[in-house]
């Protein structure tokens, strides 16, 4: 599974929202990032192996490898960065649960990696796929999920039926595995590790969450 945005991307693409938007009611995402960076570093040796395995097992042909590389390039490119930063602003404005954000990015990345989605729905700054993922994540995490009409407000070319039809395509592509996010593992880690003076960072994180 792909993790949410990495530290470099955050620094490059102004992923962090303005301080003025955050009025104190929401958790500030940038306090999470040092921890996530640590987590990523610890996972780094594992990741290339997984990628290689994916290529070796699934790709019998060169064409597939090329397509996979294109998708990976997209994921580490600037377009995704700007889309995600827009998502974070939207998320803060609409006051959703923190885990919804994580799950949205998780679904977004994994949906692209499956390669079964039409390229138009996420390239060139088209928010179609991102909003669909937000809808699915909202349904899964929130008590009152964001309505389709509120999601497509001020986005002229999108229609409600488009989102509905893409929603089922995304879910089929992921074979309904909505799954856990990094945040779930952080919670779990906080739960099982002892809360003493030796891990102050962890205690701070736990209080923030």
């Amino acid at each position, binding site marked *: 599974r792909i993790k949410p945005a990495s530290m470099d991307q955050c620094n490059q693409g102004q992923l962090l929202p303005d301080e003025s938007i955050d009025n104190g009611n929401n958790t500030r995402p940038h306090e999470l990032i040092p921890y996530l960076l640590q987590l990523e570093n610890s996972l780094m040796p594992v990741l290339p192996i997984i990628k290689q395995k994916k290529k070796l097992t699934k790709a019998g042909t060169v064409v597939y490898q090329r397509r996979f590389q294109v998708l990976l390039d997209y994921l580490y490119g600037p377009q995704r960065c700007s889309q995600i930063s827009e998502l974070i602003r939207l998320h803060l404005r609409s006051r959703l649960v923190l885990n919804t954000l994580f799950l949205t990015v998780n679904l977004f990345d994994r949906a692209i990696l499956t390669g079964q989605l039409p390229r138009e729905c996420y390239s060139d700054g088209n928010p179609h796929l991102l909003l669909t993922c937000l809808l699915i994540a909202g349904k899964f995490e929130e008590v009152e999920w964001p309505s389709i009409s509120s999601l497509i407000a001020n986005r002229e070319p999108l229609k409600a*039926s488009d989102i509905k039809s893409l*929603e*089922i395509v995304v879910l089929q592509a992921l074979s309904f595995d909505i799954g856990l996010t990094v945040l779930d593992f952080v919670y779990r880690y906080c739960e099982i590790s002892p809360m003493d003076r030796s891990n102050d960072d962890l205690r701070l994180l736990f209080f923030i969450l």
Partner: protein
Amino acid sequence: MAVSWTTMLRKHHGILINSEICKSIFKAIHQSSQQIICVKSLPILSSSSLNEVYILRTVLSNHNNHNIHPNILSLLSIKYLPSLSIKNSTYFIFDYADNRDLASHGLLYGGTEKQLTNEQIRTYLYQLLSAIIYCHDRLVYHCALELKHLLITRTGQLKLSNFEYAKHAVWRAMTIDIRDLSCFSQCPPELLLGDRTLRDSLDMWSVGCVFAQLCSSTQIESLFRGDHQIELLFCIFSMMGTPTDDIWPLFRKQPYFNVDFPRWPRRNDQLYDLTKVIGAEGLDFLKCLLIYDPKQRLTARTALQHQYFNR
């Protein structure tokens, strides 16, 4: 509208709608395999149905085999029509269980056979518990154990259905709300008293309520009744007795505990009526399921080792 999507279902997936079971659920025949199936049509993929698919497909699944457990209603496939029409719905295809659940079981037979026998109750309960063990081993809590969600096939096999309310306990400190339970009258006392931890004893209290409902002659009325939390709590206390420190050591530390709670003695007459059907061992088993202290209440695994099943 009904004509348009049924013809399309036949055209695309070879499914022939046979009859309507209830609103938006249909009995159907899969033409190529001649299998009788149950189709549930959803105009909008709601939050609860998404949860159901996630639990059944991801958490409880065992690698490409849709038949998860003999006592859990299997979700065969998920179909959707390509976007030909405006009203494109999603269809969940379930195994068909002869259109009978335990809630209407007694009513269907009518007359003298209305009451289930002890043997029937025991086999149903055994199957229910083995399905629950499977769920609890995978940290899934059903939270909607009711008679109408327990389907009976023609051969007497019990199928646990409706995972819309099910919770996947990802981390241990997950909480649950009273609204998350489907049936208010099966709310356990610790949840009524404000202890919102999600644990397996919650389902076991529901099993106790289902057991008592199966034994009673009317079957429709649940064991405890109440419209509000305090009414239901007093109904439980008046029947089972107000808990003391010996029975439930943490009773006084519950968030909504009040010293002014009336002190009812334990009444055995209402439960004793049930012994005519299930015998003394059954009554003992029921009492073990309805223990106040959630830590002492039987788990699904220990419940199967009770001597009620060993005869």
